[in-house]
């Protein structure tokens, strides 16, 4: 049919066959071969657009291979492989099919050369992924999934609207860089596309679906979810809106605001979800700066981020798999029971905190350098502050509260072997990229000569990390001995432990109250509206009940009268 088979079709075909393989081991092996097979389809392709055909006078291209789409295709394939491997123990066919379809749709979207194909896969990721949430089969998960689906589908609908407007304006459906001017009727389409990308990318105020949905998925589902949707949005932004200045400020805000939420959050999977926001912020800033160095940074960071974030989710997931909880207050002291998981978790934590010799360092440096090169001092500063925040909530908090802190006395088995292997692969990449970044740099979309390991980079990063670490240690130290220290350090203590938190708490309570009042009002209004709608349209409402013949005829008379009146006017 086409000159090149789209990898998305391989995933779809695999997903269609999966339920019919009855032997569980065979099925898992079959599923593992699919990412490899799909990868082999585009591994050796030269740059260009393949699988081009005409549909209703629209130029459709299923496979656009260039450096940008290739590297995202590659990392999505790796992520799909790791997700499937990590879920080796799962016997639920629904999750298996959904995982394959979801990964395939994401890869299909990455290779889309036109906006229509992008839209189709965009919606497909939404629909396939929601089953990973519903797979928990609890009422709570059902409602969370519905909320998630509504937001994701809305993003697709807005995208479709934008595409149609854009098509009307320009007559082109190609998916290339767009210019986001000031808002006007002429470029309403471009704005709609931008907002659709923004929803999937969890821009501030459009972000709540992420923290809502990801922690609600199954243990393995969260690992899968964390890899694709938001990074697909990053890809779409990098492809469509590089150098859009607005993105710099959006990204900066994204790096900052989740830190506070993450710091006070108890559910570790939700902490990691907030930290996705923060990491996406770095990438969005990179897209906004838009220089080759910055875009390279964004792509590299997305690549590394998928690996270490899934590594962290996998380790927390493994703990949850064994202990049944991911709440910080119920965990602790697990380093004796799950030492290998702990090591992997720390590798992930050091990567996300950008320790030298770990992958986060070599990718984040690119973005920081790009910001500095462009003279964006304030943005650079925000990113530095955000990096400290990352270290605090992801780098230290996650491993500390899970494996150390107070021992809750839980004695469980080490994670099962397939989870350890999956984590091992991710950890291998994290360290491998950190030690030998040239391999990653060679694949980046632009040729930029960049050396991450200069003395000044390493020293400044280490300073940053040490002081941030010190601060955390101090806090923990004081926090550990409240009775003894309270009397001695009353003023000082009170300042940072009572006043600040109570101000924060007061603020939070105020915001929470007004938010509740607003939502209650909105819900009340909605209820009233629905009652009115139901009164008119419900089975006994005037619009739906069976009318006596006489009143039917009355309508005819009314309409005839109106028509006659109109024609005589």
């Amino acid at each position, binding site marked *: 049919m086409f000159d090149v088979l789209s990898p998305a079709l391989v995933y779809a075909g695999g997903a269609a066959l999966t339920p019919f393989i009855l032997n569980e081991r065979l099925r898992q092996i079959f599923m593992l071969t699919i990412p490899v097979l799909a990868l082999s389809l585009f591994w050796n392709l030269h740059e260009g657009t393949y699988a081009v055909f005409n*549909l*209703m006078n629209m130029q459709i291209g299923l496979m656009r291979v260039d450096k940008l789409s290739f590297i995202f295709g590659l990392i999505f394939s790796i992520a799909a492989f790791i997700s499937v491997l990590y879920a080796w123990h799962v016997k639920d066919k629904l999750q298996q099919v959904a995982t394959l379809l979801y990964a395939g749709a994401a890869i299909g979207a990455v290779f889309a050369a036109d906006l*229509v194909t992008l*839209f*189709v896969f965009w*919606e497909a990721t939404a629909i396939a992924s929601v089953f990973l949430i519903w797979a928990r089969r609890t009422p709570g998960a*059902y409602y969370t999934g519905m909320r998630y689906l509504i937001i994701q589908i809305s993003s697709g*609908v807005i995208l479709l*609207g934008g595409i*149609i*407007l854009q098509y*009307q304006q320009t007559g082109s459906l190609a998916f290339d860089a767009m210019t986001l001017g000031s808002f006007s009727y002429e470029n309403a389409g471009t704005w709609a596309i931008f907002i659709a990308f923004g929803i999937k990318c969890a821009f501030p105020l459009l972000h709540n679906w992420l923290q809502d949905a990801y922690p609600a998925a199954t243990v393995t589902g969260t690992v899968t979810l964390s890899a694709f949707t938001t990074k697909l949005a990053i890809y779409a932004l990098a492809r469509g809106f590089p150098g859009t200045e607005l993105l710099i400020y959006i990204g900066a805000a994204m790096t900052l605001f989740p830190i506070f939420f993450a710091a006070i959050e108890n559910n570790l999977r939700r902490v990691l979800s907030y930290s996705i926001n923060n990491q996406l912020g770095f990438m969005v800033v990179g897209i906004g700066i838009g220089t080759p160095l910055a875009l390279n940074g964004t792509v590299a960071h997305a690549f590394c981020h998928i690996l270490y974030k899934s590594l962290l989710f996998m380790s927390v997931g493994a703990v949850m798999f064994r202990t049944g909880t991911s709440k910080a207050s119920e965990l602790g002291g697990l380093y004796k029971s799950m030492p290998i998981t702990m090591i992997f978790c720390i590798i992930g934590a050091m990567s996300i905190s950008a320790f030298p010799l770990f992958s986060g360092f070599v990718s984040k440096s690119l973005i920081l350098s790009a910001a500095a090169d462009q003279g964006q001092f304030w943005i650079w500063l925000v990113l530095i502050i955000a990096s400290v925040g990352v270290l605090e909530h992801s780098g230290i908090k996650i491993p500390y509260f899970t494996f150390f802190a107070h021992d809750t006395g839980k004695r469980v088995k080490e994670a099962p072997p397939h989870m350890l292997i999956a984590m091992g692969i991710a950890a291998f990449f994290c360290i491998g990229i950190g030690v030998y970044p040239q391999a990653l740099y060679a694949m980046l979309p632009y040729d930029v000569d960049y050396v991450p390991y200069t003395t000044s980079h390493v020293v400044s990063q280490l300073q940053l990390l040490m002081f941030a670490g010190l601060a955390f240690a101090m806090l923990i130290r004081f926090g550990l001995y409240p009775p003894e220290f309270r009397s001695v350090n009353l003023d000082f203590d009170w300042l940072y432990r009572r006043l600040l938190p109570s101000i924060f708490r007061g603020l939070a309570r105020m915001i929470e109250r007004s938010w509740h009042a607003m939502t209650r009002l909105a819900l009340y209004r909605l209820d009233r509206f629905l009652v009115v*709608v*139901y009164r*008119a*349209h*419900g*089975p006994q*409402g005037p*619009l*739906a009940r*069976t*009318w006596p*013949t006489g009143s*039917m*005829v009355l*309508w*005819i008379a009314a*309409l*005839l009268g*109106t*028509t*006659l009146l*109109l*024609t*005589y*006017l």
Partner: protein
Amino acid sequence: MSNLPALQIILPLMAAPICAMVGRPKFAWGLATLVAWASFAISILLFLSVRDGTVISYDMGGWAPPLGIEYRVDVLNAFVLMIVSGMTSFVMPYALKSVASELHESQHAYFYTAFLLCMTGLMGVAITGDAFNVFVFLEISSLSTYALVAMGAARDKRALTAAFNYLIMGTIGATFFVIGLGMMYMVTGTLNMADLAQKIAANGDSRTLRMGFSFVLVGIGLKLAMFPLHLWLPNAYSYAPSAVTTFLASTATKVAIYVMARFMFSIFGFDYDFQANTMQFIMLPLALVAMFAASTVAIFQEDLKRMLAYSSVAQVGYMLLGMSFLTQLGLTATVVHMFNHALIKGGLFMAAGCFIYAVNSSRIDDLKGLGRIMPWTSAAFVLGGLGLIGVPMTAGFISKWYLMQAAFELDWWPIALLIVASSLLAVIYVWRMVEVLYLRDLPEKNDVRAVPLTMLVPMWGLLLLSVYFGVSADITVSAASRAANALIGASNIFWQSGG
């Protein structure tokens, strides 16, 4: 070959009394099926020979028009003929088991007789070039439809009142229509459509003409269930036997839409301002109201067939909307949607019939959890539902795509937004069924009859076709576009120079 237009009508017309006279159910079914397929073959032949834009004119009994009755086949009515006979060919195999389970055996032969007559009437309406002939055939189809709806009484007695109401409303509609024809005859002295068009343009504006126009508009509006003249439809569709509902939903309203388009564009032809005004100030708002009100009513329905019936009213709204744009693109959307909706709604009502066959109920509450034991029917329903919403890769998407294009072409983007918004309502009522079928638990006590293949295969055939025409829409869209050209070209409308 040259007698094909006559054969198209004669064949079912002659077969109908034979069915009644022989009176054996199996024989009646066999003959009806055979005739349906033969008619389908004839309409395909006709369609192929007029596809390039030629017009076949056939003089009945050798009497030349405008005095004699003329059958006139252009690409538009060939397309409609194909929809009617094609749908009959799909419904016939389905009817065998469905009718056997829903009707007394004594009625079967009469059922097929009425069915054939109904089909004759609908095809006659589509094929004829004589305005009064349209009325005659419309009555043939309507009278047989009343009988068909009333046969639903074997399952639910309320079918009788539904049929009675339909009879009254349908008769009023037909009367209005014929009054309108009378006025037109007063002005022009002719009943041949082509002749009418010329004389209306030549004779000038007059009160009589305006009166005639209004009566025709309201009369046909009743037949095609234009909101708020749709009140007969939900009951008639809910209580008629499933095979009849399937057939009516996918052909009867479509033929009425065709008549509306034919009269508005070919015959009245927008020589005078009042026609365009009426279309845009009456039909357009009513179409929009139908899209929302009927869809919302569908959301709250407790009966599956009734829900689908209200959804039909909403879908008629889309077709009228495309027509009231008064542009080539709008008409294309209307004609494409006629075809696509026939496939989708036909498939959906077949699925409803399968549920009725299996659990002897179409109440949504009684269908809980059936997704697990009736996977094929349930999956078919979901597929049809997706088409109703207009998800890409289904036929419904093509219709909405062109409808939105037509709205954008006029820069009426608020209307385009309304089209999207009303599609979201369809998401809700389709989702409701998905939830009932798949997410609810099956009641402990259930006796579910297995649905026979003769019902499953036609249903899947229609729905797979709807997916096929959703992916490769070249055939339907090019035919619809030519049909729209034929309609627009027949009228000397003012926007031709401007657009």
